[in-house]
């Protein structure tokens, strides 16, 4: 060996290990970065890499800031603030046109059969109209809205059974339910294939062993037409009318829509089609309906690490199972913004979203079922939705829960998280919605200091003493949501629901008309010449702008960027920001705005700052 080479080798051997030179504070910093950006403490291998000479912290940070755990960490900042989950017991979204109810009857052999039907389904036979497709005289049973029937069952003849019912291979049991001969029945492999799990024992026949291969439904429910002819029976039904024998409900009366449009075709995707046509059913494989029974759809319940790693799950009926996916929609939407380092303002402004199979089914077939109710009296019969069903990818099947697809444009009314079902149900009222946006995205609260509440008849809360302090700001913000019904997502389009509707004014001798006028227009702001869309009085122009207007106002306000900085910095530092942080916060906010509202650079600036590095009171001993 050359003498100089030997010297180099000896010299290298004598160079102290750089890792040994890392101080305790370095290790702690690296651990904090791992916790916040990798979602877990560093492993032994990662610590060894950190100790090695040439460890490039910048490159390590870049890799972490492009990872899923980073996106999840920042998303948690916003999910903790928005809390987009609903309580277990909340009864939301139960439109009769969607709910496929369950009962039992006895066949000619005395065997108990499950039977599915829709409460309110229009049928040709007057005695069956609006209820299950058998009379009490035929089955011996009185069938309520849900659950087992009352009475002593009588055997239903085979002929009658075939006449009134049909067996369908439904979407929840067959992946290929749209084909003529569905064969791909759900089994245990579906969890791996689709992320979709059923409690299999609940999908067996009454013997508990034989797998159900089809469900029996009333014939009208099994129809697949997309449009149906409107029928008007001419029937006059009054509230005090006696019930017909064997019925628990009165016969359905003609709706105003049916009277006005008898004989014309209407869409079977809307509530009006369900209410006024005999030809509207649940579609191919019953895909436009959700079974209320069995409660065998396994719903991930506690999912701190995502639905793929559920810590608790419980079987639920499909109607509740769907709720888990509303929540996941918001999570996937936020994750995409942070993972792809998109403009943070998109949380409020973006027309896009991400959907999986159940959500695609929901937006195509179910969401518009809440439209239009009383609004049909004012001519609103076809929903103008927040999420245009035509934009939903048709390639997604209802059982594909693990396949998430981006929809770039939901429609002209979509505005980030604010027009998602979970937000609109979590924050049911217009004021709640405005308040949530105000506090989460502007970091401000409505606090009335030294306000005195005195009796008042002033309906305008922006003027009423004691209320005006907060409501001067709240009411104009709430007005942005005036066109989205409360505890619902039905959109009220401007042409049919102008801020002031002449036919709803109090010009007549009886004052403001009853019915839909009072549902959608506020009597307190109605006189002989004008009226006021509910919730719009604080700023009528805002009603027409909708949530998109609010998104524009909030994201262009000087409070928005500092609020993003505050929320994220507080979460990463684990403490409230104080006046001592103001200069730092202002600099971060300016850089955030100059950098086009990208979260990644903001987080990088925070975690590389001395404040983060020395975030706690730990002192070297």
């Amino acid at each position: 060996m050359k003498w100089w080479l030997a010297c180099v080798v000896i010299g290298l051997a004598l160079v102290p290990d750089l890792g040994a030179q890392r101080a305790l504070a370095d290790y702690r910093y690296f651990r904090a970065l791992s916790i916040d950006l990798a979602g877990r403490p560093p492993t032994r291998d990662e610590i060894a890499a950190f100790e090695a000479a040439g460890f490039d912290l910048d490159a390590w940070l870049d890799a972490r800031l492009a990872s899923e755990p980073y996106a999840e960490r920042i998303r948690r900042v916003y999910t903790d603030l928005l809390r987009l989950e609903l309580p277990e017991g909340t009864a939301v979204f139960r439109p009769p046109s969607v709910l496929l109810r369950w009962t039992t009857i006895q066949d000619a052999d005395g065997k108990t059969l499950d039977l599915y039907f829709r409460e309110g389904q229009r049928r040709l036979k007057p005695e069956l109209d609006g209820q299950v497709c058998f009379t009490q005289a035929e089955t011996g049973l009185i069938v309520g809205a849900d659950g087992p029937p009352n009475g002593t069952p009588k055997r239903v003849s085979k002929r009658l059974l075939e006449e009134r019912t049909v067996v369908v291979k439904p979407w929840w049991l067959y992946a290929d339910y749209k084909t003529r001969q569905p064969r791909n029945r759900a089994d245990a492999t579906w969890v791996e294939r689709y992320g979709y799990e059923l409690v299999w024992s609940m999908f067996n026949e009454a013997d508990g062993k034989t797998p159900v291969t089809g469900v029996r439904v009333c014939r009208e429910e099994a129809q697949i037409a997309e449009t149906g002819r409107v029928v008007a029976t001419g029937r006059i039904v009054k509230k005090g009318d006696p019930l017909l024998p064997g019925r628990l409900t009165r016969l359905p009366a003609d709706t105003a829509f049916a009277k006005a449009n008898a004989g014309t075709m209407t869409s079977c995707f809307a509530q009006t089609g369900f209410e006024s046509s005999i030809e509207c059913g649940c579609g191919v494989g019953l895909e436009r309906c959700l079974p209320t029974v069995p409660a065998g759809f396994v719903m991930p319940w506690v999912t701190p690490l995502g639905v793929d790693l559920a810590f608790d799950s419980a079987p639920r009926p499909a109607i509740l199972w769907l709720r888990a996916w509303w929540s996941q929609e918001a999570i996937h939407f936020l994750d995409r913004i942070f993972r792809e380092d998109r403009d943070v303002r998109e949380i409020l402004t973006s027309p896009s979203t991400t959907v999986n199979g159940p959500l695609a089914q929901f937006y195509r077939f179910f969401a518009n079922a809440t439209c239009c109710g009383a609004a049909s009296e004012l001519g609103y019969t076809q929903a103008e939705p927040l999420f245009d069903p035509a934009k939903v990818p048709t390639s997604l099947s209802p059982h594909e829960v693990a396949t998430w697809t981006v929809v770039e444009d939901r429609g002209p009314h979509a505005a980030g998280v604010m027009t998602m079902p979970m937000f609109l149900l979590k924050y049911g009222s217009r004021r709640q919605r405005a308040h949530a946006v105000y506090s989460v995205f502007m970091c401000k609260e409505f606090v009335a200091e030294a306000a005195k509440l005195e009796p008042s008849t002033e309906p305008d809360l922006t003027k009423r003493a004691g209320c005006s302090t907060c409501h001067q700001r709240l009411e104009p913000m709430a007005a942005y949501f005036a066109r989205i019904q409360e505890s619902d997502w039905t959109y009220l389009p401007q042409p049919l629901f102008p801020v002031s509707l002449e036919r709803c004014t109090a010009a007549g001798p009886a004052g403001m008309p009853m019915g839909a006028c009072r549902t959608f227009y506020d009597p307190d702001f109605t006189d002989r010449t004008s009226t006021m869309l509910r919730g719009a009085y604080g700023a009528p122009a805002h009603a027409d702008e909708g949530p998109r207007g609010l998104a524009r106002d909030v994201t262009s306000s000087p409070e928005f960027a500092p609020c993003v900085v505050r929320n994220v910095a507080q979460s990463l530092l684990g403490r409230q920001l104080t006046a001592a942080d103001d200069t730092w916060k202002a600099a971060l906010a300016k850089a955030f705005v100059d950098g086009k509202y990208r979260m990644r650079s903001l987080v990088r600036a925070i975690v590389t700052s001395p404040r983060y590095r020395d975030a706690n009171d730990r002192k070297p001993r």
Partner: protein
Amino acid sequence: MRPVALLLALLVACHGDRRPAVISPGTAQPWPAHRAVLLDQSPKAKRRAVPAEVFLRAYLGWFGDLAPYDAFLRARGNDLFDQWSYYLAALGLPDHHVDAPRISQSNTVMLATIGRLGEALCIRSVEHDLRANPPLDKRVIFAFEQPVQPTRETFAPAFDILHRTFLGYPVALAPIPRIDRFFALYREVASRQATRLTPDEMAWAAVCTALVQHPEAWVY
């Protein structure tokens, strides 16, 4: 007596020719250099609890990257582990269904829960890593050859592996020397009667549990 006292006072007062020194004007001298004291004025807060999600992810990783249900299956038995639902809220997870906020500061219930989870992890890991004796690269926690009747010197490198696993840095950098204290714990437990595990296995499980419960493991 009084005249004598007055005379003595006069003598003391007028003793010597002590006129005040005269300070003559001169050029101004700079102040002597002083040492600059840097004060860290950045706001400080108490160390924050590791987010429950991070603890759970780490915990599943320490179990060998198991899914929650599989970790439950591995951990249960002999009253070591009940159900996840008993522990999750106590770890500080928020429950947005009922608007229960995240707990970001530790509390006694949280610490007890972490201790309980740590015990389950460490005993099962002893069974998996030490008793079953798989190759080192298959061990998740006790990734070392178990020293026979360890001395302080043979205990220290093994303990360093555990220390890095749970606290994230070499034990040599610990603010308070830890090897002796944990070795004492090891010897204390190992001196007791065997249960299902051997005394040495119990001792390693105790050291592991103490590290999982160590404040540095669940704050940062």
